[in-house]
């Protein structure tokens, strides 16, 4: 069985000291170990952004794709080898801005992917512009007078798109987040883990302290995870109290299960030497 170190590379993270990414990085490694994976059994697809740089620090098959596009790469990869665990790691700008269409459409199909979003409500790598999850009025270098738009709510969007596993963690609570990611990794279908992650360099509003005062654990309030409408209600909670934990989970057929082509063996292992096109030619006569 793998240990934590097996998921580390020779590169040490280049994030700012105190960045919430360190916490997420640690919990992802721990969760992969706890869920029983070896580095060569997983493909981790990254978006582009501060979170995407994790590709260099996390040992396993990696795919560092394009900004906003990790989900389609992961979906294509999962269809090709459904026996490989596919995890997607991206940021809020990546997944909820540039790649929002993929977020909704991937959820619809329920492929077995675990999607971990580093949601720091700001563009870190490009030095502090507003993000799709920045709060209304948030002042940044691209919105010096404050953001006019209301923020995206990824949890309620996912719930509305019929997601089968929707959860939220906090980079400042590693134990809780590890547990959440393990659950997500074990979910047979698409699982979203939105991680609230303070950006210590550029977001001076949503700080660790700001979150510590607000976050609470849904599980400790006797919340049950099988009611989508109640989940949407909780997902809309923001401000004085911010819920953490699993909002909703259900089991339904995955994208892969609905494809008879994938029933026998991984698509990539299909032999190519017994293809006969003569019936196709006959149709054209």
């Amino acid at each position: 069985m793998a240990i934590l170190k097996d998921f580390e590379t020779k590169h040490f993270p280049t994030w700012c000291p105190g960045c919430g990414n360190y916490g997420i990085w640690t919990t992802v490694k721990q969760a992969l170990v706890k869920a029983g994976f070896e580095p060569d059994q997983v493909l981790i697809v990254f978006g582009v952004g501060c979170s995407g740089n994790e590709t260099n620090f996390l040992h396993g098959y990696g795919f560092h794709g394009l900004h906003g596009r990790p989900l389609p790469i992961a979906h294509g990869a999962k269809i090709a080898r459904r026996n490989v665990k596919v995890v997607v790691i991206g940021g809020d700008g990546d997944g909820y801005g540039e790649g929002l269409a993929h977020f909704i459409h991937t959820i619809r199909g329920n492929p077995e992917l675990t999607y971990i979003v580093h949601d720091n409500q700001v563009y870190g790598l490009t030095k502090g512009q507003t993000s799709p999850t920045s709060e209304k009025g948030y002042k940044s270098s691209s919105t010096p007078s404050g953001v006019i738009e209301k923020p995206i709510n990824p949890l309620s969007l996912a719930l509305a798109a019929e997601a089968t596993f929707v959860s939220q963690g906090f980079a400042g609570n590693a134990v809780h987040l590890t547990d959440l990611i393990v659950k997500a990794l074990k979910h047979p279908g698409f699982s979203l883990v939105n991680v609230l992650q303070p950006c210590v360099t550029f977001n001076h509003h949503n700080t660790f302290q700001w979150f510590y005062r607000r976050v609470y654990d849904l599980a400790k309030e006797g919340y049950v995870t099988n009611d989508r409408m109640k989940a949407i209600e909780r997902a809309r909670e923001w401000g004085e109290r911010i819920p953490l934990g699993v909002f909703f989970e259900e089991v339904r057929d995955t994208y892969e299960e609905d494809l008879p082509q994938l029933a026998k063996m991984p698509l990539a292992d299909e032999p190519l030497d017994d293809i006969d096109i003569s019936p196709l030619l006959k149709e054209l006569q």
Partner: protein
Amino acid sequence: MVTGLLFSKSCVRAGLKAFDYTEYPSRIRGGHNTYLVQIGEQEIFSHDRSVEILVALNQETIDLHIEELSAGGAVIYDPDDKKISVVRLRKDLVYVPLQMAKIASDIAGNRLMRNTVALGATFSLLQFPKEIAYSIMKDVFGSKGKEVIQQNIDTFNGGFDSVSKQQIERFGWKLEARESKGDIVVTGNDAISIGAIAAGVKFYSAYPMTPASSILTYMAEHAESYGIVVKHAEDEISVVNMAIGAGHMGVRSMCATSGGGFALMNEGYGLAAITETPVLIVLVQRPGPATGLPTWTGQGDLQYALHAAQGEFPRFVLAPGDVSEAFYMTAEALNVAEEYQSPVLLLSDKQLAESHETVPPFDQSKIEIRRGKCVTQRQLNAQKDFKRYDVSVEDGVSPRSFPGMKAGIFIANSDEHDEKGFTEESSENAIAMFQKRQRKFEDFKSKMSQPKLVGDKNADVTFVFWGSVKGAVQEAMKKLKEYKTTTNHLQITWLSPFPSETVLKILNASKRVLLVENNMDGQLGQLIREQTGFEIKEKILKYDGRPFFPEEIIEYINKE
């Protein structure tokens, strides 16, 4: 199946050759639609301008096409349609009244079956045995049951008998059935799809876009029986990234689109190049820019395709010129993609994509599947330190491992990366990786097939072209024989890498070089000048969304 194709297939079953071409506006129904079928005893590479039978379902058709009819040709029209009038029209034509709507309603209870009535009438005019039509209808409507077959046959006979009774003797053309040669009637899009299936594509993604859509529907229709996953994704960005994801895992993957969709794919195209992921992208052109002429044809995207995506990387671009080439070159493009671990771009256009050509059945035994360099688990076990992007390889191609394999871990990284895929921005590494990828291109260039001169030796005229223009050029060459003009042609199938030396040698030795392109800029001409320094001065260019008629090429030659 549309009636025009029933006619094409009937002729081919009777041992003749057919080529058909459709025009339609970009809307679901209505507007002026045409279906043109050209029939001959010998191979036909393109339709020409002359029409012998015009089936006019409305007055607009008569107005628009009456001048195209050969003297003695026939116009089939519905005398019950009060909006149609054939008085005071050309005197050298035969006007055949046919109560299409009435016969269709009486027999099938559906006036939309007018086409089938007209098909019967056409058979009668041409004295073509109706049993051939019966056999096609039995095959085409077989799945819909005996009643549907019989209804179609009866409706067909309604038209056939109506014209037979009129004893039209002035019509001078006749079709004689011969022994069937077993030919197939196939479009470029069908050929690309079948080529892909034969070559082992197991993942196909697309977003509908004319004129590429019928590849998607073809692949979807045959997906389950060939164990292929077909994904209609939310947009072309997703399409290309999914195909890359599947290609990364070791599945032969392909996607197709037209210019607008390819524009969305550009970033992914570069991603496949830097991560060295095989994927075949088919670009079926239509005239642009933007939405342009969505249902028409053109070759305006050549220079765009050659330069698509940011940055410098080997761009493998090829273009078939007819349906047979579309089949074999699609399969070959998939081999090149995997052997050189690279995206490959195959260019087609609406004329090739949607026109039916008659050819002998494709020969699957000529297709070889070559997967390129991949490591085995045993090799990985024996190695201490697997380097997916090993720069020491002479041909630039370093063996692939696949997720799930032990000891084969690497990162496919859109950032410039080191031999294991870790982000690496040093000067030395950047140069090494640029050169590694470029060496793949040089290696392929040294092995690729070279273009050949086809036709008369020391010809008066050498035609130079790429893509579907081939059909019109071949037809023109046939007819130019009658004018005692000797001709040959130089078709460029691999546009990048460009076979510079061969092309220059051929052009230098040619008497009169003529560029034929379905675009405004003469983009192949530009490419040839860039790559060889040879400037082709004579150009026949057409950019109105319509394919070339052979006559246009012949007229150009004869007027000089």
